């Protein structure tokens, strides 16, 4: 069951919000509603977030993303549509049930930290446990653990105002983690931090997520941040979700011009992976084939060298045309095999940026899966072509 399901969420601010929704459903546009004194913030937003996923909602300011995230935990009741958390409809929940859900299921990290300035760091971190009714000793212990996990030790008894911005947001994160809910909402959580600290926090968040397996809904206006941490990304514009997909899908197949323009400046080599540029091997050599067959294949494809696999496609090594040509009388090519160096074999999720180093040393990189099976090949030429595409786009943009 998905952790979060949003079904056709609308939020229209103004006296007659419901009417605004009807008009939007009938095809009215935002400008028309604005003339009628209504402000549509979120229009027909639907998405699901799977358990343990980092789902990023990315949009510029005013795109409605902050309103959207607040509908997920009911801080803003939707004008229309509903939200389910693990199948439980929170939009229809009573005030009491809603508070229970917030205590047990879903916690939040805020853009401007929203720490309680009159409470010490540890009492801030323990706040969620306090509303859950956990006894004082226990909650201080768990809050302390959460602070440690977020890299903040020795500040327990200080006031938030005595901490730097980055440290304050660690307290905000610790407060959400200490509550031990399985869903975490993060509203532009790192936007107020300076770039270096932001990167640091992003890494830490990914690490924490891998360790704790939380479901994270992350809001940002920073595309690089979205691409860095998001398993999937929802692109938002003027209240609508215009595309949902992985970073690669959005880069390689933008849903419309807006998204295309938006992602034009992204450093593709840091988003796209080996799997997206690799080619199927032009021809495959099996290790039990003879040198003559091999030599013929290599001449046909004009290849100076070829990867050799076993029957189950596991990568065995490579042979060069020179050597095969000089040893045509051998029974099979096993004796001519050379091992593929570690740097020349990469996983499918390796970033393109990390292929340039190996490509300088070898004419072709082998992409293999965890079991060592050959998935594809990235020849140096292909890599340069992929980079060239981007340069071309950058020049035309």
């Amino acid at each position: 069951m998905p952790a979060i399901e949003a079904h056709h969420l609308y939020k229209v601010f103004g006296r007659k919000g419901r009417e605004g929704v009807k008009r939007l459903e009938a095809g009215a546009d935002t400008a028309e509603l604005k003339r009628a004194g209504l402000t549509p913030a979120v229009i027909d937003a639907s998405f699901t977030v799977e358990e343990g996923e980092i789902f990023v909602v990315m949009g510029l300011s005013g795109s409605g993303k902050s309103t959207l995230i607040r509908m997920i935990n009911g801080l803003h009741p939707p004008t229309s549509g509903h939200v389910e958390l693990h199948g439980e409809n929170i939009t229809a929940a009573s005030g009491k049930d809603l508070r229970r859900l917030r205590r047990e299921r879903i916690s939040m990290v805020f853009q401007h930290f929203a720490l309680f300035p009159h409470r010490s760091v540890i009492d801030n971190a323990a706040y969620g446990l306090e509303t859950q009714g956990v006894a004082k000793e226990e909650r201080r212990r768990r809050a302390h653990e959460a602070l440690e996990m977020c890299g903040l030790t020795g500040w327990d008894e200080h006031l938030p105002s005595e901490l730097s911005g980055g440290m304050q947001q660690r307290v905000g994160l610790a407060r959400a983690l200490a509550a031990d809910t399985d869903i975490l909402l993060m509203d532009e959580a790192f936007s107020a931090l300076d770039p270096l600290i932001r990167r640091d926090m992003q890494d830490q968040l990914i690490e924490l997520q891998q360790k704790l397996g939380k479901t994270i809904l992350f809001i940002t206006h920073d595309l690089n941040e979205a691409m860095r941490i998001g398993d999937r990304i929802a692109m938002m514009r003027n209240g609508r979700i215009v595309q949902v997909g992985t970073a690669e899908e959005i880069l390689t197949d933008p849903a419309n011009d807006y998204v295309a323009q938006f992602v034009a400046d992204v450093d593709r080599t840091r988003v796209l992976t080996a799997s997206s540029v690799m080619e199927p091997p032009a021809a495959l050599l099996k290790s039990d084939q003879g040198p003559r067959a091999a030599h013929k294949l290599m001449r046909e494809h004009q290849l100076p060298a070829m990867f050799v696999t076993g029957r189950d496609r596991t990568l065995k090594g490579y042979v060069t045309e020179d050597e095969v040509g000089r040893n045509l009388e051998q029974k099979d090519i096993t004796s001519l095999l050379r091992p593929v160096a570690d740097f020349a074999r990469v996983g499918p999720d390796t970033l393109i940026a990390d292929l340039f180093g190996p490509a300088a040393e070898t004419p072709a990189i082998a992409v293999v899966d965890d079991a060592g099976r050959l998935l594809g090949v990235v020849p140096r030429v292909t890599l340069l072509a992929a980079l060239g595409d981007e340069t071309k786009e950058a020049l035309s943009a």
Partner: protein
Amino acid sequence: MPEDMATGTVVPPVPIGSWLETGFESFKDTFDAVFDALRDVITSAIDGLAGVLQAPDPLVLALGFALLAWLVRNWKLGLGTLVGMVLIIGMDMWEPAMDTLAIVVVATVIALVVGIPLGIWAARSSTVSRILKPVMDFLQTMPGFVWLVPVVKLFSIGVAGAMVATVIFALAPAVRLTELGIRQVDREVVEAGHAFGATPRQILKDVQLPLALPSVMAGVNQVIMLSLSMAVIGGLVGAPGLGSEVIKSLSTLDLALGFDGGISVVILAIFLDRLTGSIGTRRPGRGRIRELRERFTPAASRTAA
């Protein structure tokens, strides 16, 4: 020309005053018994407190006030308080000063008990806020003397009427600054409370009120100041205290008595203002007791060593 026209104008007469009076009379007749009971309660409360304040030797109590001022603020205020209080004793104004102080304390407590919840209510409901705003404007701008007339009618001459007029006159800042303080609390911080599943009551108690405290305390300070000024005016309707001394000096043109009374009011005002003003500006989040303990810990450990 019809006789009921206002002189020299075509505007028909609008006797709001006499309408209010008619309404007021029927109100009074209906609730006469309530007001009698109220008068007894208020009078005995003030008499009781005044009795307590006047029971110990004036010098002992003056020292007590000085000690309090030192604890709450610093030794300078403590010393100033001692000098001021001794001056009041010297001017033979101690007894009326304590009467006035009793009225101020009781009026402040009542104004806060009524005003702070009203302020909280106004902060949470814009409708309530919209209704209370003109009412508070009305209470605050109406000249204080005007309240003396209806209260004398309701409670007759004496301290009870003066007290009620004082509460009405001093109420507004308690409501306003409480509302303002709560509304000024960072929206995101309140949201954080909601996001972690706190009840509205928990949010009020743990987040909004503590963060609104400086503003609320500024309100308390103003309530006390307004109470003091109105308690003095209450002398006009027979309330005991410094006010009645000043009125006495006015009717006998006794310059010396007038200044003695006036200076005593000033001393009392400065004492109360500095005392309560410093409470509002202290760092949020540090308990009063804790702060005092911290202040005394070095002293205590020094004596121990």
